[in-house]
């Protein structure tokens, strides 16, 4: 009996040490090849919140492959290839932190793209700040906006438009809404971080524009909006300002049109929900980084991208997810490589950032960064009218 106990204890301690050794062993990496620039990507590629991260990863992989297949790129007389390190954070801050540590401390990566998720960003931010000056973190998370320009955050850049601010489109959109004669707008938004930020941006804008504003919140995961929509309908809004993911939009638009709410503004999602209900609605105004269905006919770069995507992944082109390639995606890899070439260095992070901040890149999008490091890119506003007639407005922020 005693022997078995000691044996068990010893076996247990052996197991623990062996397990640790296994974990350690699998983290020891082989020697790196010469003349390789490693870029990292830290996104949620799978899991419930993976929409943005997945598309970014798709675009990034393509860009890296294309650049390497073309023979790499030349900086200060030397030829380099790219190596993409893109683990899946699964939307979990703890996992993302460990992935970032691996990237910065073991792989010595200097250029990291992502994250798009606010909670992942906030989980890695304290650690990342300790590496200020040693790498660049270029992500689309909403929370990144608030840290841009703060001391010790020079490593940070944001790869997405901001609704407010001098180049923001929020006031543009509200002005446009006012021109249509809207006097009352009811917001029905997810009760989460982005929803609250959206409210904080738009409530004052509506107030200044003299438009009455009502706010209703719902838990992510809700599918039956009948009661809150009935409540909104009783308030008699001109437009409904709905939540921001397709899953939610399909249900909101369907249920809203059933009770007579037919105008929707500043939808962030695909055209799908609008088209599905096209005969029931009057106005469906979408903010979309690019209306790919139209762009593939009018922009050669887009047409090429779609063809390359289909060939690379051997699958249909995801039109409804493609607009998300506007953040930390295909264009950004090329933009980074161009910046390294122009700056004449792959290691001097400060110089590369300076170059990034002072160039305008013309890829699928026209991309530049404002003085705080926030991206400004061109986007489309698509208006679906009753019956499915589509009006597209292209907006190029100055």
């Amino acid at each position, binding site marked *: 009996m005693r022997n*078995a106990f*000691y*044996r*068990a*204890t010893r*076996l*247990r*301690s052996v*197991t*623990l*040490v062996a*397990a*640790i050794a*296994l*974990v*350690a062993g*699998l*983290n*020891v990496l082989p020697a790196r090849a010469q003349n390789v620039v490693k870029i990292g990507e830290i996104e*949620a*590629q*799978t*899991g419930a919140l*993976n929409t943005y991260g997945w598309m970014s990863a798709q675009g990034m992989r393509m860009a890296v492959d294309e650049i390497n297949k073309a023979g790499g790129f030349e900086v200060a007389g030397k030829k380099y290839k790219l190596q993409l390190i893109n*683990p*899946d954070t*699964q*939307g*979990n*801050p*703890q*996992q993302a*932190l*460990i*992935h970032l*540590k*691996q990237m910065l*401390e*073991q792989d010595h990566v200097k250029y990291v793209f992502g994250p798009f998720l*606010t*909670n992942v960003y*906030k*989980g890695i*931010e*304290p*650690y990342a700040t300790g590496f200020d000056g040693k790498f660049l973190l270029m992500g689309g998370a909403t*929370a990144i906006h608030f840290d841009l320009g703060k001391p010790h955050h020079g490593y940070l850049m944001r790869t997405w438009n901001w609704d407010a601010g001098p180049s923001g489109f929020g006031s543009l959109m509200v002005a446009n809404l006012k021109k249509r004669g809207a006097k009352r707008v009811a917001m029905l938004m997810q*009760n*989460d*971080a982005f*929803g*609250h*930020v959206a409210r904080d941006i738009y409530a004052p804008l509506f107030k200044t524009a003299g438009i009455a504003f009502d706010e209703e919140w719902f838990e992510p995961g809700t599918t039956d909006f009948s009661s809150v929509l009935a409540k909104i309908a009783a308030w008699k809004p001109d437009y409904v300002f709905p939540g921001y993911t397709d899953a939610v939009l399909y249900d909101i638009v369907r249920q809203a049109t059933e009770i007579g709410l037919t105008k929707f503004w500043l939808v962030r999602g695909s055209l799908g929900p609008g088209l599905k209900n096209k005969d029931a609605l009057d106005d469906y105004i979408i903010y979309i980084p690019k209306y790919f269905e139209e762009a593939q006919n009018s922009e050669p770069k887009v047409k090429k991208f779609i063809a390359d995507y289909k060939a690379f992944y051997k699958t249909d082109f995801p039109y409804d997810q493609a607009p998300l390639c506007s953040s930390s995606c295909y264009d950004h890899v090329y933009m980074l490589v161009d910046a390294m070439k122009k700056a004449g260095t792959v290691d001097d992070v400060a110089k590369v950032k300076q170059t990034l901040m002072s160039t305008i890149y013309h890829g699928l999008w026209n991309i530049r960064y404002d003085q705080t490091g926030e991206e400004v890119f061109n986007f489309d506003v698509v208006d679906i009218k009753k019956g499915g007639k589509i009006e597209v407005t292209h907006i190029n922020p100055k």
Partner: protein
Amino acid sequence: MKSSLLWLPLFAVPLVLHNDVVLTILVFTFILGILAVSFNLIFGYTGQLSLFHAAAFGIGAYATELAMAHLGVSFWIGMMIAVLVVLTISLLVGTICFRFKLKEFYFAIVTFAFSEMARLVILNWNSFTNGSLGINLTAKPSIWLPGGAIAIEGTRIWYYLSLVVLILTVTVCARVVHSWMGRCFAAIRLNDELADTLGIDVFRYKLISFLIGNAGAAVAGAFYAFYLGYIEPAYLSIDQSLAIVAMVLLGGRDTVAGPVIGALVLTALPHVINFSAETRILVYGLILVFTILVMPKGITGAIARLARAV
């Protein structure tokens, strides 16, 4: 405790292994180990499936930070305040549940209900908790030693700190389990009605195990929050509670320290095997199903069986 020798090699690890990534995984393992071991006191030893543990974890985290931010106290005082807060809430929840003699399944459901209510409160109380945006913690805890104060920064210090706290937790739980209190817990686990007829104050001991367990969760919450540097309402989610159950089932319910192995596996797994979130969900599910049906004593139990057979 001859099994305390087991812990010695762990102190040597940072001296031998300079891999920060592995050490980070171990720090998370130790902190989550505190969480799992304290849960096992309630679940493995007293036989009560509480789904409130994640709430204790999350409330402990939030309370520590909010105490530090609003009352200006140090991390350690903040953590003590958090433990008091969690004890008070647990007293309320536990009294309600045990006074009304909620059995097994109903107890699980009601603790889940309270946990969800706590999460909804934290999620919606934007002015106080910042809601879904969460709170970034910038203050670093420090330790006062004879030589002066050391800020607890850097993986190595966190490693030793979390290891020491884990060992303390395990020691405390082991003391409790091997005491007369522990024998009462065991009796309740086996058959609480019978225990009652034997004169054991079932209400009292269920409540005590619930309080001690949740206090442990609060401590884990405080450390976890400060190590990661970010708190969000998801700390209190049902997924977190279920992950804790999975850790305990996997590691083994029968020993005090068994759950730590479960914590190690579940923390390290995504970094050892690169699989998708979908596969991870599948693995979690299979762990829950498998351990209950095939390996009810978890990994430590399987090892013990192996030791006996050898």
